[in-house]
């Protein structure tokens, strides 16, 4: 499709001589929710980090909204964009990390409003109003002045989601957003993500929560052995289980 929001072509990533993946093609259309599953070490985190330009990549291209990010061709040579441009390109994506990574010296409000003030250049009052609006959306309207150390893991992750989405990215990237949480806190975070999906947000979600992936996704991607091994609708991936590797991987989950 011509109008896919995120278009990845022949993406290749190496750490020195260690190949993480090669020849990865992936499209995410506006409003779509795509989940990535796969065994530990299959390169799911690395793929998200490449899209968010936190990681370099050695081959292929990533197009966001039709424009290449990270690298461009100059005199038929591949060149990385300068850091200032990369910083601007990162605004197209929002990232939610497994370990939340909140700014520990700031309140929830400070965490969410920092980017609005410094990057979007909103005046403080306006940025904070906007930030509290997002905190309310994730159910933390009453915790705006709490520091990360005063919040539960689930609350911290919801602040992190508000922080990412407040920047109004085209696509939200989630890297195992509930893996660092106690089981009883997983639900509140997944519910927030489901709500965002229902509101039409475009999302790419790495997860080990198979039931959640089944329910929320339009498309599921199975990464294995340095490539995308299967891709399809949740029904195709979870019920038809077309390949042996996929069957084997899914059998390690009890659902």
């Amino acid at each position, binding site marked *: 499709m011509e109008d896919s929001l995120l278009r990845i072509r022949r993406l290749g990533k190496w750490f020195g001589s260690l190949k993480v993946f090669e020849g990865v093609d992936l499209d995410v259309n506006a409003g779509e929710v795509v989940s990535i599953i796969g065994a530990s070490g299959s390169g799911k985190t690395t793929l998200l980090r490449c899209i968010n330009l936190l990681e370099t990549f050695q081959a292929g291209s990533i197009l966001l909204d039709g424009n290449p990010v990270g690298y461009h061709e100059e005199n038929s040579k591949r060149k990385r964009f300068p850091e200032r441009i990369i910083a601007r390109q990162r605004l197209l994506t929002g990232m939610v990390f497994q*370990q939340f990574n909140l*700014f*520990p010296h700031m309140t929830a409000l400070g965490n969410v409003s*920092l980017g609005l003030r410094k990057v979007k250049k909103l005046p403080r009052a306006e940025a904070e109003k906007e930030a509290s609006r997002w905190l309310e959306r994730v159910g933390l309207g009453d915790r705006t002045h709490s520091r990360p150390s005063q919040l539960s893991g689930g609350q911290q992750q919801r602040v992190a989601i508000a922080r990412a989405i407040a920047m109004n990215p085209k696509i939200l990237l989630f890297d195992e957003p509930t893996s660092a949480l106690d089981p009883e806190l997983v639900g509140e975070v997944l519910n927030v993500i489901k709500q965002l999906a229902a509101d039409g947000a475009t999302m790419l979600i790495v997860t080990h929560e198979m039931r959640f992936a089944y329910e929320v996704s339009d498309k599921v991607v199975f990464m294995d052995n340095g490539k995308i091994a299967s891709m399809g609708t949740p029904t195709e991936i979870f019920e038809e289980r077309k390949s042996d590797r996929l069957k084997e991987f899914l059998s390690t989950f009890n659902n």
Partner: protein
Amino acid sequence: MRYFWNFNIVFAQINLLLDGLLLGFLLALASLMIGMALGLFMALAAISKHPLLRGIARFYVTLLRNTPLLVLIFIAYFGLPDLHIRLGKSESFIFALSLYAGAYMTEVFRAGLEAIPTGILEAGQAIGLTPLQIFWNIQLPIMFKNVLPSLGNYLISLFKDTSLAASITIPELTYNAKKINTLTFRVFEVWLITAALYVIACYLMAFILRRIERRFAIQ
């Protein structure tokens, strides 16, 4: 043998001692401030990607941490005029003590910066902050919080080091004590009171600094 204590003759000169104490504190404070600025630049050099910058930082720290402070003071006071750099006594002392403090601050700041989890900096990148914005809004405040206890302790340590300024006749506490000693010959009394003044001043500083730290920790 009996020693006849006479503290009064020293207490009559207590203002001289207190003036010296204040001067020593100001010398330490000024040196800490300059040393912090120097240390911050050197710490950034120490963690930078450029081998040359890292080399400069390592050279500075190695050189300064392995030179006795008194030697540094003499180099600044007796040596600099030969290079046609004329500084007052206090200025040359602050010059030496700042360089000395800067080396220590380089190590403290470097550790404070390196203790920040990379994920937090990546979160800053992810919302589109530039490297400079990340430095000002994330790295610097978290680092200062990390190193606040070390800064306080080091101010106290520098304050004690200011007694070496007596060697180039700067009228701080130790020098003034020596002067009273020469005038009164009350050796024990003078030096006991001087020691007590150092202890009380350091204790007070530690007390105040701990309160400031707690204030920052709660915020």
